[in-house]
């Protein structure tokens, strides 16, 4: 089963169309293996992207170097998945 330890979901707030375009450039970089939960669309709409652990640093540097604001929506995806699995298991054992 795929392990998502260290994967983070970033919420990106693009200030204008140019910044949205910058994020679209990221989307094209396949080696980063980004998974857009909410794709880049218009400046007023948040962009949510799951970033695999190996790419986290590079993506944050890219965003900061272009002055693109972001926050961390999910600090470690695997922690939430573990909670979910435990909840399902607890239900089954009950």
């Amino acid at each position, binding site marked *: 089963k795929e392990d998502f330890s260290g994967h983070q979901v970033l919420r990106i707030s693009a200030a204008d169309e140019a910044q949205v375009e910058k994020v679209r450039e990221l989307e094209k970089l396949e080696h980063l293996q980004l998974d857009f939960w*909410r794709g880049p669309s218009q400046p007023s709409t*948040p962009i*949510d992207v799951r970033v695999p652990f190996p790419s986290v640093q590079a993506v944050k540097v890219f965003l900061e170097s272009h002055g693109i604001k972001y926050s961390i929506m999910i600090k470690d995806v695997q922690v939430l998945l573990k909670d*979910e699995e435990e*909840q*399902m298991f607890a239900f089954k054992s009950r």
Partner: protein
Amino acid sequence: AHSTDTFSYATYHTLDEIYEFMDLLVAENPNLVSKIQIGNSYEGRPINVLKFSTGGTNRPAIWIDTGIHSREWVTQASGVWFAKKITDDYGQDEQLTAILDSMDIFLEIVTNPDGFAYTHSKNRLWRKTRSITAGSSCVGVDPNRNWDAGFGEAGASSNPCSETYRGKFANSEVEVKSIVDFVTNHGNIKAFISIHSYSQLLLYPYGYTTTRVAHQSELDQLAKAAVENLASLYGTKYKYGSIITTIYQASGGTIDWTYNSGIKYSYTFELRDTGLYGFLLPAKQIVPTAQETWLGLMTIMDYTLKHPY
């Protein structure tokens, strides 16, 4: 579970558990619920639809589907809750009884069975189908970009490795083609509601073009009423509007095809939340999400009943 009364709606379930639930519900309500297999998925799993009918032949109908994007688990879980709600409320709730006395309801709970099974076995965040694309090491097609509406235009990807890969041609995915064939053969579906998560939106066509639909103001008014009723339960705020103006351009989408096929009341819900947990919504939010969504669905279904066309 021994019955749908002891089934737990407040936890996520596997494909097998959901299919067992469907069989239980049919067995408990033989005069109201039946199960129709509309096809087999790419990997050979049955594609099952629940039909809620009180009689008649080829009555005007309402279609609801959940789980077309397999990782959006709160949608399949809500679909299970909707199914039970319909059987509980028929004969009790005046509005729903009036709907079912004149119309049928079709509910496809697991619209992407292969993808859903894969989220349980291998990759919880899998979104697409599991079809193999010749010449590519990447798997799957986005089933909400594969419909014959603006197919091939901007708003989807031609890269098999992309999460929004449209597929080689429209309806290439058997999970999509099965619905297309069913809806076309039925010919009397009056409302089509496809349920996704997340971001709390109620959307109507179009996604592939900025052209306004002919019934824009009516669909907008109805969406407004639906999100107001939805919010009345827990205060959950939804935005509403056309796909392209509210989120982004998306081509080959389900409800663009259903609208162009003549189904006026075509909507997509994007359920909870707006971005705390995203696709990993905790199970304790399943029932409240389903309850509030049901109020929105009832608004659309009641309006459809009262505005035949």
